């Protein structure tokens, strides 16, 4: 891998954090046969949950001594940093988790903990970033046409300190070409339909670059849920959708194998929900308003625990909406989600509208799951 003179110097830096960050990028570059380092516009750092990285990770984050040279965003943590007690999080966990977050903020990271960095970064087609959370990666590549590989938390952090990433994989245009056509003849009427589609085909599409053809018109925002579940099920980092995504017309697709989906699979999940959890990935302003609307139409308190998850920034921009939602007995948490928080483990059966949460909750939190779109979730809250 070619390194410029300045880059070579960073490998000999007196600052250990900078030296290690550079060593990490060079090692990854060697592993993937990158030709050089290229600048990135932002990084998004995952793997910051105390539950996963433990004391070793915590102490490592605290030992770092440098500043991010580009915008650095952080993935959700194990709890709402303000209302953690309401989530049933114990103080020991809270303290350790805060030490990890504060260590990253000291390095210059943005305070917003979210899996939806794409709502807060103005990026355009062809820009390069180094993001680590799987739904953020697939959203950037597919829906924005922004280029990122599947980074780990540490490689993204190293890129934040150096401002660069090794040039290989999805940073290179020719590697972004579709590898299979998925011809969806089944009618798609909601983001929940797309989540179900992704849930049933995600594994089969594992590590491929699908090119979706939809027969009826669908909204671009629904693709967020499709990407999230494809990433959870099959590590998908990029898909194209005819007429919808920015790069769909850039490649030759005539010779590709074709997978036809005639109808959506009915997947049965049956349990009696004691928690309804919405916001995986984190809710946008418009999704939050949609839920407020549904509650307003019922205009009474919910009868079950309902947790919504969004980013602190969306929450602050929608204070009135959140207050309205909370007046119906629903909790709106920030900084965390049902997948990364240990709080979910206190329940038996969780109802979700997310294919990604559906994939991860049984495995990571040991709970049963039930699926429904947002309307069905709110309906369940009143049962």
């Amino acid at each position, binding site marked *: 891998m070619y390194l410029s003179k300045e880059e070579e110097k960073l490998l000999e830096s007196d600052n250990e954090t900078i030296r290690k960050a550079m060593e*990490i990028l060079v090692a990854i570059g*060697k*592993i993937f046969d990158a030709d050089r380092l290229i600048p990135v516009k932002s990084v998004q750092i995952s793997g910051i949950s105390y539950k996963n990285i433990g004391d*070793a990770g915590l*102490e490592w984050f605290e030992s770092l001594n440098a500043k991010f040279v580009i915008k650095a965003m952080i993935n959700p943590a194990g709890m709402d940093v303000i209302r953690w007690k309401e989530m049933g999080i114990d103080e020991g966990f809270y303290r350790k988790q805060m030490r990890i977050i504060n260590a990253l903020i000291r390095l210059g990271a943005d305070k917003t903990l979210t899996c939806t960095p794409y709502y807060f970064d103005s990026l355009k087609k062809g820009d390069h970033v180094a993001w680590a959370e799987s739904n953020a990666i697939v959203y950037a590549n597919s829906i924005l046409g922004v280029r990122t590989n599947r980074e780990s938390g540490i490689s993204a952090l190293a890129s934040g300190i150096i401002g660069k990433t090794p040039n290989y994989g999805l940073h290179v245009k020719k590697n972004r070409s579709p590898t299979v056509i998925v011809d969806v003849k089944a009618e798609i009427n909601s983001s929940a339909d797309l989540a179900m589609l992704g849930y049933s085909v995600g594994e089969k599409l594992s590590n491929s670059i699908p090119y979706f053809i939809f027969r009826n018109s669908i909204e671009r925002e629904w693709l967020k849920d499709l990407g999230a579940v494809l990433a959870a099920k099959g590590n998908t980092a990029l898909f194209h959708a005819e007429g919808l995504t920015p790069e769909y017309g850039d490649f030759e697709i005539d010779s590709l194998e074709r997978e036809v989906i005639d109808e959506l699979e009915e997947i049965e999940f049956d349990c009696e929900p004691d928690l309804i959890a919405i916001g995986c990935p984190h809710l946008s302003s418009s999704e939050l308003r949609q839920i407020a609307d549904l509650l307003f139409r019922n205009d009474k308190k919910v009868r079950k625990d309902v947790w919504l998850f969004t980013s602190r920034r969306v929450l602050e921009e929608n204070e009135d909406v959140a207050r309205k939602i909370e007046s119906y007995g629903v909790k709106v948490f920030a900084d965390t989600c049902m997948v990364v928080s240990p709080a979910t483990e206190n329940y038996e059966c969780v109802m979700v509208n997310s294919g990604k949460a559906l994939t991860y909750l049984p495995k990571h939190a040991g709970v049963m799951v039930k699926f429904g779109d947002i309307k069905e979730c709110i309906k369940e809250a009143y049962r």
Partner: protein
Amino acid sequence: MRIPCRTISKGYAEGELIVSRKNFSFLGDVDPESGLVKAKDSDIYGKNISGKIFAFPTGRGSTVGTYVLLRMKKAGSAPLAIINEKTEAIIAVGAIISDIPLVDGADLSKLKTGMKVVVNATEGYIEIPDWL
């Protein structure tokens, strides 16, 4: 005999080899406190990688494995150095942040458990006894 390798994480170590022919995950395959291999399907099940030079084809599994390596280093149970056929990012990053020498590009077929070897990851070679 000196075998040239590729530097991934710099450093120098000499010690006894432990060789596995299977891909390794630091999350799940090993007890981080003791260094004992606990994966029943491993060809080095029940053996200890702590204080040894650990050779295996490549890493697999969760990226949390990176932190397990760091935890082992802090607990004093980490391998002295790692030799891979073709390394991957979980092991590479774990070795770098834990200051464990790591080289790859080595032909593992020449390496056998119990051999005394030198790993010079800074200069990019390993040395095995000449009489082999």
